[in-house]
């Protein structure tokens, strides 16, 4: 690994091997699309397809029978459904963070991972969107959530955070799709120019006739920047609005002002963990080790460490304020979380989200694939339980003891959880098979910089012009 010895002006190792050519980038990124998928792909795809099918069966049965087939009861009216909704929306946030925020901050290492992270965002938001629909119990009335002129002359209640959620999530999905598609246009053009026959036709339509003209690039780069600029506050708003679903209620444990930043940090934390999980597999299965290097993964692990500590800080603040507030109900909720019947969930959350990521203080672990894979999965387990803890422990014991109950998931609750993972991975695997998983155009830009830094090309001719 002699290329890691070369560093650029900021002291970072090169993002890509400077000995590669531009044509190598196209050939290697397109390879998984052009060859038949391997056995490993089929194994993963079959499993996720099966899980998706049982998910569809569960949803069908649940629509026929009603939401009562889940373990929901009188005080616990929201459980696995809303937990999974918040979880999946949160997963999506890392994709936007990588593609938009890191773009604005000129973090070049994003180029190898932004495409797959954005894809993850879209599939995670699609998965998340299913949950509010099925949990309404009568999803065929879901269009009531949209303000449309109707014969009752009635509009939606714009003061309700649940309506804000509808707007936030649908805007998020739409804008993420626009952003993703904009990034894909030049790569579809590359694929078009590599392929022949009907495939060429499909990629020609998808690329819309992109030719890489400088007049077009000029508009393209500015438009991409604008979309990044819009997505940045958007991603922060989405999880803030999701947290308003809870924060604007009067339930102890939900009614807190810390929720918006706490939810956003948690979302980025879990999303980065999911990106690491996916990329560790992706780079192995599709042999992308030279593009998604240990340096990229290490950077992500650093973000996991930072956001994990933010989340830990939020847990501590929340607990402290509850004890310090002097409000007996607030205090009770938190003591009940840590020592009540759902203490197991609380301590899974704390150990997975606060303790486990601390291993990333050590460079050895930040660069170890096995360690990061295990940590990333544990973080996601922890983040799922964070939402479960917030939702269920606050609901199951509110102000009046006669109202108290316990929540026991049924087999159908487990079915939707694993089903949602199957659904998500099914889309992601299809994406890996048909779309370029790495932004070829952006990597070429990084590659040229790497070549210059490593002295692989004659000293810059451009400098002569600008001088």
């Amino acid at each position, binding site marked *: 690994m002699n290329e890691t010895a070369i560093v650029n002006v900021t002291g970072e190792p090169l993002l890509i091997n400077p000995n590669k050519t531009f044509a190598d980038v196209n050939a290697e990124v397109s390879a998984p699309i052009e060859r038949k998928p391997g056995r490993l792909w089929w194994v993963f795809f079959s499993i996720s397809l099966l899980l998706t099918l049982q998910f569809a069966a569960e949803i069908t049965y649940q629509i026929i029978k009603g939401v009562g087939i889940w373990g929901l009861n009188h005080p616990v009216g929201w459980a696995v459904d809303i937990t999974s909704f918040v979880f999946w929306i949160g997963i999506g946030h890392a994709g936007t963070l990588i593609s938009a925020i890191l773009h604005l901050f000129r973090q070049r290492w994003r180029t190898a991972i932004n495409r797959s992270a954005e894809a993850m965002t879209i599939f995670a938001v699609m998965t998340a969107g299913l949950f509010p629909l099925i949990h309404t119990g009568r999803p065929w009335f879901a269009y009531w959530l949209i303000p449309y002129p109707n014969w009752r002359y009635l509009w939606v209640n*714009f003061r309700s955070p649940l309506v804000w959620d509808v707007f936030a999530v649908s805007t998020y999905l739409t804008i993420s799709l626009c952003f993703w598609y904009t990034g894909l246009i030049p790569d579809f053009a590359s694929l078009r120019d*590599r392929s022949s026959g009907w495939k060429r036709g499909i990629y020609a339509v998808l690329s819309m006739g992109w030719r890489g003209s400088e007049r077009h690039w000029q*508009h393209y780069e500015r438009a991409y920047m604008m979309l990044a600029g819009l997505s940045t506050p958007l991603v922060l708003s989405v999880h803030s609005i999701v947290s308003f679903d809870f924060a604007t209620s009067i339930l102890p444990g939900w009614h807190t002002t810390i929720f918006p930043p706490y939810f956003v940090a948690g979302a980025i934390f879990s999303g980065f963990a999911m990106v690491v999980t996916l990329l560790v597999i992706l780079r192995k299965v599709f042999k992308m080790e030279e593009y998604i290097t240990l340096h990229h993964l290490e950077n992500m692990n650093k973000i996991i460490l930072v956001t994990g500590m933010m989340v830990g800080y939020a847990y501590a603040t929340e607990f402290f304020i509850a004890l310090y507030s002097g409000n007996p109900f607030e205090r009770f909720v938190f003591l009940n979380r840590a020592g009540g019947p759902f203490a197991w969930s609380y301590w899974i959350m704390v150990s997975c989200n606060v303790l486990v990521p601390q291993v990333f203080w050590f460079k050895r672990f930040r660069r170890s694939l096995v360690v990061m894979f295990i940590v990333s999965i544990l973080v996601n387990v922890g983040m799922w339980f964070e939402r479960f803890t917030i939702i269920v422990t606050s609901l199951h014991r509110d102000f009046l003891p006669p109202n108290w109950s316990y929540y026991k998931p049924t087999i159908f609750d487990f079915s939707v959880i694993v089903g949602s993972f199957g659904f998500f991975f099914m889309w992601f695997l299809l994406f890996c098979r048909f779309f370029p998983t790495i932004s070829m155009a952006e990597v070429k830009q990084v590659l040229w910089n790497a070549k210059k830094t490593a002295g692989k090309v004659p000293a810059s001719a451009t400098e002569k*012009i600008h001088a």
Partner: protein
Amino acid sequence: MLELPFLKPKPVRGILALYDSPDDLLNAAALVTEHGFRNVDAYTPYPVHGLSEALGIKKSWVPWVTLVMGLTGAALGLTFEIWTSAIDWPINVGGKPMVSLPAFIPITFESGVLIGGTMTLAALLLACGLPNFQVPILDRDLTNDRFGLFIPETGPAWNEERAIQFLRSTKAVDVRVIRG
């Protein structure tokens, strides 16, 4: 491109030079306007910085669309919320004022982003004249590892020989006459 009867390819005439490196292209681009060639375009696999300045291509107007449409979207969102909640059917919800401005801000913001973002993509496509399946692809490697400089045939003063000679004098690996 797409060989469909109703999509007749548009004729393109001019001289195309291909380069191996973006720096060679930049060098040639810096000289091409000095030599009096007009409407020169470059084709690159990725955005090469400094190229549009060298070719004298104006800055994109797309960001203005984002700004104007973003503000329009936000204004429309807020107006719609106020109209439905306070004018069309005023309903007292929890004693809140009819125009509950703080509660209306999230959707105001989201509509601004939604309209601003979708219109940015629409403006990009409009600005680039996409989708466009009629203009021929000059070389398949222009989206791969080649960098092209294209001097279009312009007006009666067009001197093909001069364009070819100029492009040959740069570090072009190939110079082609395009008569599409």
